[in-house]
């Protein structure tokens, strides 16, 4: 077995016992990346030089621990990579956009600070400004699904999901505004967690929809997701929306029995539009949970399918405001061919943003503009309230809500690029968790036509323990932990 195949817990166990060193783990990852990155294209920027330095430092920390010193932080020496919308001091951060090409942040995001000791391999591809479901909106080219390189890895954290699935790193961080961690996790056969809104600091995360964005881990096992979650969660004075509630011991929760746990199944989720292959795998996973002693109860979320429409009004409104900062004056690209300030801004933004980003800025500006605010934006916020009320009524009858993560398996390149709404539809099941701020996770539960299917679980706000207990049970009963894809084309399918 090669070191790149090991998950976080096995890897750090080997470090603790002296059976492997962080430098050896890093070199194994680098070898894997160099062999397969031309196929997968997960990275926007590799930073192996600094990684080697960090690994050498971690070598010493583990050696000292073995000699009797205190144990280092749980992720010390573990290779990882970051979605390119999290600021890294001294390392280019582009958000997959031309407008930020060459931008070098003068500070680290809080999650990067918290992961000091782990070994950063580089920055991962994404849909421009996290707007998209396939990485096809990246200004620097799409990433490919390691399970079938003719297909998208999902998005927007597609580079993160592809990197973890291909064995480049045991974990990556992504961000999730409407499903951008969970949908690519589902497409690439890995675990993806969107924590409760407020659990993880957003300081240093380039803002898209500030009331919706959360950072979370992508890993190859539920326990590894628990370890990363515990490392990055917690209150941060630099993010006033971060919660001061204590971070729960979710790793312990992974070992909890689910006997008697009530799993709510919204009848609205199993409607036309859901592919038979996905439906079959999700139903199978639920049957296995029942065999473990969980009780599956039918619940109703009558407005849940309207979440997508509400989302595209709320998220674009917030984005139009957040992206106003890209003006060609203070950082990033600047087109100074015109003589006045407003023209500099217009030319810079028109050249620097891609089509989907412009579409969303335009939509957001429209719904916030005089005369339309009430009809669109405020209506969407009221629907958001309706959704929250419906979910919490359902949570009166169950502990977690389960369903498919996405209506279908990974689609082919170019299939949806001409029709924005068909692209948006792949987020129909994930989007509501962002609108109401609850935690949600996608866990691999099977294959359909040789491609991964994820089951999505959601829990009440701040109940990550219940969420992890159920997620670990899904993984245990499906036997799909620690799977690595060997990148290949899909000509046989």
């Amino acid at each position: 077995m090669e070191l790149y195949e090991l998950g976080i817990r096995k890897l750090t166990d080997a470090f603790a016992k002296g059976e492997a060193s962080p430098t050896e783990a890093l070199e194994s990852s680098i070898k894997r990346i160099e062999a397969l990155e031309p196929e997968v294209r997960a990275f926007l920027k590799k930073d192996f030089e600094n990684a080697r330095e960090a690994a050498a430092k971690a070598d010493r920390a583990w050696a000292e621990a073995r000699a009797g010193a205190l144990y280092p932080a749980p992720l010390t020496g573990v290779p990882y990579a970051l979605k390119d919308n999290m600021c890294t001091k001294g390392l280019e951060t582009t958000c997959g956009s031309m407008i930020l090409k060459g931008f070098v942040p003068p500070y680290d995001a809080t999650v990067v600070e918290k992961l000091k000791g782990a070994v950063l391999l580089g920055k991962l591809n994404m849909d421009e400004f996290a707007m998209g479901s396939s990485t096809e909106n990246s200004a620097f080219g799409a990433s490919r699904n390691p399970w079938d390189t003719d297909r998208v890895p999902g998005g927007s954290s597609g580079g993160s999901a592809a990197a973890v699935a291909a064995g480049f790193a045991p974990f990556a961080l992504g961000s999730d505004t409407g499903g951008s961690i969970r949908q690519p996790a589902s497409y690439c056969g890995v675990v993806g967690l969107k924590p409760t809104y407020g659990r993880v600091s957003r300081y240093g995360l380039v803002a898209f929809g500030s009331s919706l964005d959360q950072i979370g881990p992508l890993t190859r096992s539920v326990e590894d997701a628990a370890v990363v979650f515990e490392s990055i969660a917690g209150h941060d004075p630099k993010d006033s929306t971060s919660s001061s509630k204590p971070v729960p011991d979710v790793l312990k929760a992974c070992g909890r029995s689910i006997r008697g746990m009530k799993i709510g199944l919204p009848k609205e989720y199993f409607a036309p539009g859901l592919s038979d292959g996905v439906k079959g795998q999700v139903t199978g996973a639920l049957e296995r949970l029942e065999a473990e002693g969980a009780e599956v109860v039918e619940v109703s979320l009558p407005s849940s399918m309207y979440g997508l429409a509400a989302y595209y009004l709320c998220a674009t409104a917030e984005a139009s405001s957040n992206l106003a900062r890209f003006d060609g004056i203070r950082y990033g690209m600047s087109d100074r061919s015109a003589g006045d300030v407003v023209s500099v801004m217009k030319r810079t933004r028109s050249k620097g943003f891609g089509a989907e980003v412009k579409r969303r800025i335009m939509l957001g500006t429209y719904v916030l503009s005089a005369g339309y605010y009430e009809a669109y934006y405020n209506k969407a916020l009221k629907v958001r309230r309706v959704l929250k009320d419906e979910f919490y009524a359902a949570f009166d009858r169950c502990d977690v809500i389960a369903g498919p993560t996405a209506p279908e398996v990974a689609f082919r390149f170019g299939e949806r690029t001409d029709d924005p709404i068909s692209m948006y539809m792949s987020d129909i099941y994930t989007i509501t968790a962002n609108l109401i701020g609850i935690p949600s996770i996608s866990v691999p539960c099977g294959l359909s036509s040789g491609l991964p299917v994820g089951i999505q679980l959601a829990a009440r706000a701040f109940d990550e323990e219940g969420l992890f207990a159920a997620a670990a049970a899904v993984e245990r009963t499906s036997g799909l932990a620690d799977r690595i894809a060997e990148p290949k084309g899909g000509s046989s399918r």
Partner: protein
Amino acid sequence: MGITKEDVMRIAELARLEFGPEEAEKFASQLGDILGYAAKLDEIDTKGKEPLTHAQEMVNVMREDVPVEGLTQEQALMNAPQRKGEFFLVPRIMDNSQED
């Protein structure tokens, strides 16, 4: 939901974006489609519902009023496309020709 090319131009001005006529046409039709899809929300009765602007509905998060270190001037300026000494450089904003 009818979005005209003129609507697109008006919104583009507010959003500090520019579009050629062909692009504006395409955006008008795509935005119209998306807004048409969003009009589905009218099927939901929201009478008496308070708008939910933020998932956790926190208010007035305060901290002690003690100064903490921020970015240095040099750090703040390091990504400036154009700078002059310790300032961001922008094209002239005031029109000189009217001055006496």
